[in-house]
C-alpha cells in the first residue's frame, strides 16, 4: 500500500493510512527523499495517527528518513503517535532519539514553521 505524499507550501505531508509492510516503508523512504529533492522542501511531516503498532523496523526507518532528510538541510517531524503506542515503544527501547515529534499535524506544521523562521 502506497503512502500519499502531499505538498503543502514548503512542506511535505505523508499520512500513513494503515499498517505498512517493510517494503512499503522502504518505498515511503525513497519517495520522500525524491520529493524533498524535487520540490526543494524545507520540512517533512510523517503522520502516524492511524498506526496502532510501531515495530523496530518502522522506528528505524523513520529515524533513517529523518537523518537522510537532515542531510538535505530539511527537518522532519513525526506526528500523531498514540499514547499506548508511545508507551509500548518506550518499553521496547524504541525511543527514536534525535527525531522531532509532535502531537498532531497542526503542531507539526507550527514546529516546522518555527524552524524555518529561525533559519531565515
Amino acid at each position, binding site marked *: 500500500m502506497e503512502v500519499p505524499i502531499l505538498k503543502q507550501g514548503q512542506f511535505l505531508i505523508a499520512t500513513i493510512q494503515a499498517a505498512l509492510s517493510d517494503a512499503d516503508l522502504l518505498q515511503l523512504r525513497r519517495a520522500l527523499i525524491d520529493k524533498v529533492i524535487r520540490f526543494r522542501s524545507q520540512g517533512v511531516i510523517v503522520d502516524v495517527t492511524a498506526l496502532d503498532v510501531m515495530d523496530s523496523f518502522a522506528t528505524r526507518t523513520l529515524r533513517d528518513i529523518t537523518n537522510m532528510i537532515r542531510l538535505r538541510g530539511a527537518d522532519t517531524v*513525526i506526528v500523531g*503517535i498514540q*499514547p499506548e503506542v*508511545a508507551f509500548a515503544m*518506550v*518499553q521496547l527501547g524504541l525511543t527514536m532519539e534525535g527525531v522531532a515529534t509532535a502531537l498532531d499535524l497542526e*503542531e*507539526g506544521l507550527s514546529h516546522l514553521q518555527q524552524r524555518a523562521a529561525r533559519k531565515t
Partner: protein
Amino acid sequence: MSSSKRSANHMQRTVAQSTELLQELVAHLRQNRTQLREEWANRITEAQLLTAMTTEEIFTEATSVYDNYVETLATGTFEALQSYSRNLSERIIPRGVETHEVVGIVLLLRDVLARSLFAKYQGDFTMLNRILDAYEPAANRIANTVAVGFVQERERVIRQQQEAIRELSTPVLQVRERLLILPIIGVIDPQRARQLTEQLLRGIRTNRAKVVVIDITGVAAMDATVANHLVQTVEASRLLGATVIVTGLSPEIAQTIVTIGVDLGKMNTVGDLQGGIEQAERLLGYKVVPAADSAHS
C-alpha cells in the same frame, strides 16, 4: 473386633467424657463469673494492655468477652464467637488496639481461668488433669479464633484503605495553555505508576500539552522499577511531542536514578516546582512581568 473399631469406640468415649467435663467447667465458670471477670480485668490493666481504653470500657468489654468465652465452651460451636470477635475488632481497631494486645488479653483470660481450675481441683490431681485435658484444646481454639478474627478484620481495613488510596487518582492539571502539571504525592507502587502514565499520556492528548511538569516533591523514595517507569513515561511523553520537566527530586530518588544508570540527558530536571514552571514558561515563550513594569513599557 478390629482395632480401628476399638479406637473409634474409645474416641467416642473420650469425646463424651470431655463434653461432660466441659459442662462441669462451664458451671464453675458461671458460678464464679463476677470474681473471675474482675480478676481478669485487673490483670489486663496491670499488664498495661488496651491502654487506649478506660477502665470502665475494659470492664465492659471483658464482661462480654467472658460471657462469649463461656458460651463457646458450653456449646462447642465457634460461629457465634467468630462473628463476635469480628464485631469486637471492628470496634477496637479504630481506637488503635494492637494485635499483641488482643492476643495478650485472650491469653490472660486463659491463664486466669486455668489458675482458678488449679485452685478448685487442687486436692484431686486426676480430676484436675482430666479437666485441663478438656479445657486446654477448647481454650486454645478460642484464643486462635479471636486472634484470627482480629487479624482478618485488620487486613480487611488495610485492603479497604489501599483501595481508597488507589482511587485517589493523581490529577493532571492545566495551569496555562499547553502547560500541564502532575503533582505526585505518596508512595508509588508499580500499579499506581502505570495508572499515572496512562493518565498523563491521555492528558497530553486531550489538553494538547507541549510541556508537562511532573512534581515529585511529595514522594519520599521510589524503587528502581518505579524510577525506570518514570523515565519511560518521560520518553513516551516526548514521543507525543511534549517536553517533560521533573521537579522536586528528593536526594534518595536522585540516588536511585543515578544507581539504575539512567541517561540524564533524556531527563529534564529542575530543583523545585517554581523553577520547573518558570522553565516551562520559557519553553512555551511566555514571559511573566510585574503589572507595573508592563504598564511603563
